[in-house]
């Protein structure tokens, strides 16, 4: 038997006026980086606050390394949170901020100084000991918050939207920083975010949340390549979704019928009798077919095109009235179709996925 998970949620529910988190069970293994991914209002912050001890679950248990700590207040839990707005102490220096948790725990001043110095070196803030918080840049503040939590060597580090509200350059830099700290210190990390890039690049495991329920748990690759349903698919970037008229199961491939055309699809990974199947495509893998080429779908009428820098977004309509948006390269060599023109499209070698149409709220 393996050692108990650093954090386990056992059928946790939180109800305000209506359920915000419904019957969630999940595990964060020791040393892993788990991300809860979901749109705003999906209950991900509530989960983090219940783990941190700032909210009490309505039902269920929260276990740290196998020990039930559901009833403990925040200051008695072996985890530390990096809040979205950090909560750095404005009346203290950087060093005092980092040493705060040690001081509260009654660690002697010499050890405190030593640990603080080491931790500031790890987050590359040597020489900033005596600075005040308002003298630091956004990225430096994030690193102070990281150091302040990590110096306590928490069993679990909780990150609340760690990279939200930072500019792109800083985002990339910090993403690297967090990933490096995770590997170097072997820290167990649970992050919540609404940003799929963040989740995909940082985590060992992603939990996709929607309206307080888990939609899928898997590695980034599994979630990205094999989304469990249309909701997850759309969340990780499968924006081109079509409703088939008919779906036929096969042995190797399944076949779906869209606007009178027969389309070869991947067999569905998950089946959900409550929902019909939808056909899901990556919008950037679609291109416009040459006149001589055998197309995968068509004809489509181009409604509009929009220049997006790297790509051109084409909004089109099928003969059965379904809308389809996709991206074509914005290279000068690639012709942009005129509005109103008729086109055929190709997505080979990608095969569309058939997924349960869970787009409607359950």
């Amino acid at each position, binding site marked *: 038997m393996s050692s108990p998970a650093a954090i386990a949620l056992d059928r946790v529910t939180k109800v305000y006026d209506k359920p915000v988190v419904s019957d969630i069970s999940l595990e964060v293994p020791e040393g892993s980086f788990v991300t809860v991914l979901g749109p705003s209002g999906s209950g991900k912050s509530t989960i983090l606050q219940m783990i941190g001890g700032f909210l009490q679950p309505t039902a269920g248990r929260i276990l740290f390394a196998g020990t039930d700590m559901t009833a403990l207040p925040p*200051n008695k839990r072996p985890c530390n949170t990096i*809040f979205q707005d950090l*909560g750095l102490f404005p009346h203290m220096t950087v060093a005092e901020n980092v040493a*705060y*948790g040690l001081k509260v*725990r009654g660690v002697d001043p010499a050890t405190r100084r030593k640990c603080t110095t080491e931790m500031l070196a790890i987050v590359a803030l040597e020489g900033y000991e005596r600075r005040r918080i308002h003298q630091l840049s956004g990225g430096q503040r994030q690193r102070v918050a990281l150091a302040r939590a990590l110096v306590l060597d928490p069993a679990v580090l909780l990150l609340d939207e760690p990279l939200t509200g930072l500019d792109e350059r800083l985002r990339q830099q910090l993403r690297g920083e967090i990933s490096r700290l995770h590997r170097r210190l072997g820290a167990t990390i649970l992050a919540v975010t609404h940003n799929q890039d963040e989740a995909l690049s940082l985590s060992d495991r992603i939990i996709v949340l929607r309206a307080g329920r888990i939609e899928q748990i898997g590695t980034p690759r599994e979630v990205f390549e094999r989304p469990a349903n249309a909701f997850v698919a759309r969340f990780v970037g499968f924006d081109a979704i079509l409703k088939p008229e008919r779906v036929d199961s096969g042995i190797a491939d399944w076949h779906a019928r869209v606007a009178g055309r027969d389309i070869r699809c991947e067999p569905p990974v998950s089946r959900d009798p409550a929902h019909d199947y939808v056909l899901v495509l990556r919008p950037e893998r679609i291109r416009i077919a040459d006149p001589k080429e055998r197309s995968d779908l068509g004809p489509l009428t181009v409604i509009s095109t929009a220049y997006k820098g790297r790509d051109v977004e084409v909004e089109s309509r099928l003969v059965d009235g379904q809308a389809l948006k996709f991206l074509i390269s914005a290279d000068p060599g690639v012709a942009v179709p005129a509005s109103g023109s008729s086109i055929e499209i190709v997505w080979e070698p990608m095969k569309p996925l058939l997924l349960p149409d869970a787009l409607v709220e359950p």
Partner: protein
Amino acid sequence: MPHEPGLRESVDARWPAGFLLALPSLAVFVGVGFIPLALIATWSFWSFDPDTYWIKPAWSFASYAALFENGRATVFLRTAGLAALTATASTLLAVPAAGLIGLLSGPRRAALLLALFTIPFFTSGLVRAFAWRLVLGRQGIINNALMSLGIVVTPVEWLLFSDFAVLLGMVAAYLPFAIVPIVLAFARIEHSVIRASQDLGAGFWTVFATIVLPLVLPGIVAGFLFVFVVAVGTSMEIQLLGGAGASSISIMINDVLRVVNFPLAFAIATVVITLLTVLIIIANRALRLSRLFESLGI
């Protein structure tokens, strides 16, 4: 002088829109604030002519020398001491009250509680001070209650016409002056800061001592100063509730004006205003008190 092109532009640059917008309030400040104060300060250096009972423009420090005669310095010290005591007591009461309003209540309840604290201002200060006589007097509510309960046989004398009564009346009257700045200071504390401190292992009292108290300190000092300044200038509570020999700076000024010694009265006023101004400037420099009011938009 020849007309220079671009003169209008340079005038505009020298009198920017901000200055024009500030002009009305600046006019009020200079008209009813600065000019009268300047006159008082100037006339305090003129001489009092006992023959005509009038002042004449002969520069002298006589009024300032007189500050140290006839026990006037003692009145200064006593007034400052009483004001400091009032301000201390008010601040001690205001911190938990403001904490309740600014930190623990939602915005709606906070507004309601703050309004409740300002209701006493709806009645005249004179009436409020007088009301204490009905509470504290020999036949007052407290003495009647104590006697009917058999706790005392004769009325407690020191309740009224004593320093205790004055202190009670002043604290009751000026407590809201201490509460408002402390509420503002509490409201400026970000919730995440307190959460972070709990998250890092601090219990209730540690959070209070290491995070909350240092962050509301400017509000506490501002509240103390507000009450202190008002308490230094008051005479009502002392006249209505104080003992026979009780005096204060404002009563002293009143007495001096009764014999129309304007320069002396003005000298006392000038010293008080100067000392209070210096006190406030020092406190503001040290703790950036003016920041507290940024959130109000003033």
